[in-house]
């Protein structure tokens, strides 16, 4: 199946439609909430949360004996929350830094989870196979009810974000200040963190424990490149996330043996790369171009002010001078002289140049401005 075929099938094939909708919604909620994680400098928290949810899945299976996704994900949610707030309390109560606490809890929970998985696999119960799909995810197992749950939760989290937008923004920018204004920062922290945990748990079935954090970070990191407004960033991140979901599903569906989760993550990372290079304000490419242009512009201005100083010593500002005398000044090239002439700032005749009145005025303006800031 080719990609164009996929997009045709998207609206006719029920299963494919469900899976695509699921990955799109998942990408959107992750992008939305991921923006908050990234701006709070808690990018790695997502990684710890997803790994911490693994033992929850295994325990839920051991206790209930079913493979029902909803039960397993509730287990994942509980153990993800326990891991998250454990990390936070370690940071608050001990002298360990966040990265250390994250690493500790991540490996502890993931280790425990793997142990339980191997234990389950040795059990004489044919029912157990398939739990390991939560490691790397399996989008094909998404059914309509899963997608409904995802959509409902995305709606709720959108509502919560809108409701507490002002408070959350304040918390992200300046937590201490938020506290002094009388807001309960503890509540806000728990609120946003819980929704991040929820988003991660939602993605476990599709993308899996190992790669889930990328879904949270990549769209947000990409969106940050394109905008300087928080609201636009959140919306863009949601769009990037949804795009990665759908496009990743398309690629994996059109190439038979590619598993969906990793492809979605790779698409998201490509979006990040493109954003890092091509975004107009923060991108690497345009920064280099801007650098280069500014340098050229600056050289031109330098040449002009140098000429200005020479012209100042003469009564007639348009008195011609030999180009030669510019030789002991390093800012000029033949090209820059030509450009100055094009802008009618100087006139070149043979091997002599002269400032035009316009050029003299411009040079005087530049000369006055140097040393003054825009404050």
């Amino acid at each position: 199946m080719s990609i164009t075929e996929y997009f045709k099938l998207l609206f006719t094939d029920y299963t494919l439609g469900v899976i695509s909708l699921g990955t799109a919604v998942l990408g959107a909620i992750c992008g939305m909430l991921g923006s908050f994680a990234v701006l709070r400098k808690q990018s790695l928290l997502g990684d710890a949360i997803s790994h911490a949810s693994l033992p929850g899945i295994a325990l839920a299976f051991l206790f209930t004996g079913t493979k029902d996704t909803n039960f397993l994900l509730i287990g994942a949610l509980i153990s993800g929350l326990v891991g998250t707030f454990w990390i936070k309390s370690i940071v608050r109560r001990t002298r360990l830094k966040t990265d250390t606490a994250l690493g500790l809890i991540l490996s502890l929970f993931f280790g425990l989870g793997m142990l339980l998985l191997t234990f389950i696999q040795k059990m004489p119960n044919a029912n157990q196979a398939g739990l390991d799909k939560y490691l790397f995810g399996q989008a094909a197992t998404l059914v309509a009810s899963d997608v409904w749950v995802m959509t409902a939760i995305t709606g709720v989290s959108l509502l919560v974000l809108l409701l507490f937008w002002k408070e959350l923004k304040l918390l992200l920018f300046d937590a201490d200040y938020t506290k002094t204004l009388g807001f309960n920062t503890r509540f806000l922290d728990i609120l946003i963190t819980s929704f991040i945990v929820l988003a991660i748990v939602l993605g476990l079935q599709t993308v899996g424990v190992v790669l889930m954090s990328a879904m949270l970070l990549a769209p947000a990191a990409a969106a940050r490149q394109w905008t300087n407004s928080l609201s636009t960033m959140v919306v863009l991140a949601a769009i990037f996330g949804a795009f990665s979901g759908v496009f990743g599903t398309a690629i994996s569906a059109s190439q038979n043996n590619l598993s969906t989760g990793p492809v979605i993550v790779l698409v998201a990372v490509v979006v990040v790369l493109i954003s890092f290079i091509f975004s107009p304000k923060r991108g690497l490419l345009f920064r280099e171009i801007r650098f280069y242009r500014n340098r050229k512009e600056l050289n031109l201005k330098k040449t002009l002010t140098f000429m200005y100083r020479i012209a100042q010593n003469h009564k007639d500002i348009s008195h011609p001078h030999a180009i030669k005398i510019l030789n002991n000044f390093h800012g000029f090239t033949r090209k820059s002289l030509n450009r100055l002439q094009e802008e009618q700032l100087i006139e070149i005749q043979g091997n002599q140049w002269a400032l035009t009145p316009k050029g003299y005025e411009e040079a005087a303006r530049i000369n006055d401005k140097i040393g003054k800031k825009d404050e």
Partner: protein
Amino acid sequence: MNKKNYAIQVDDLTVAYDYKPVLWDIDLKIPEGVLMAIVGPNGAGKSTLIKAILGIIKPIAGSVKVFGKPYKKQVDKVAYVPQKGSVDWDFPTTALDVVMMGTYGSLGWIKRPGQKEKKAALEALEKVGMLSFQDRQISQLSGGQQQRIFLARALVQNAAIYLMDEPFQGVDATTEKAIINILKELKSDGKTLIVVHHDLQTVPEYFDWVTFLNVKGIASGPVKDIFNDDNLTKTYGINYKVAVNQ
């Protein structure tokens, strides 16, 4: 003096981050309407004192009263200007937006800022001479401009007490003048200002009240009475001499 006349009263305040106390048994009475400097060496607990007053840091012991009541009941009367290095200035927002944050407290939960709040923010921006920068992305502001934005955010709160953590740090002479003029104006409006300050030379010129702090409270009172070599030596540990022109 009647107890009610104190803007802030600190009793037996002790704060420790770890085993070592950062503040030890501080007693402090700050009268209403003073422009007060908190001075002391690095690690003396100046910022910590401000944060403890504001309830950002929980003390081990002691109490803080703002106009005779706990801080939590007086949040609308106090404005805080943190050190400008305490936030990430690459945050995606504009100067005006940051100043608007000063109105969030009086708005309370959920309610969004409207025209009234925007007007107040613009007025504050004008006061600090930053009106033309209202749409500027905050990462594009110089250090002095960032400091002014923080000051404007506190001005919007229209509080009775202002607590400022090193507002003159890393700003040029022009900005320092502009800031001190605003502080003096606030004082003449009857506000109480508490400022963590580093430049001992300017204490007599800028402030009328001073607190010497070095983990313990050394002295607190009018600059003209207690800003002397004796207290400076007690606070900074070395034989300190500054020319105090009075």
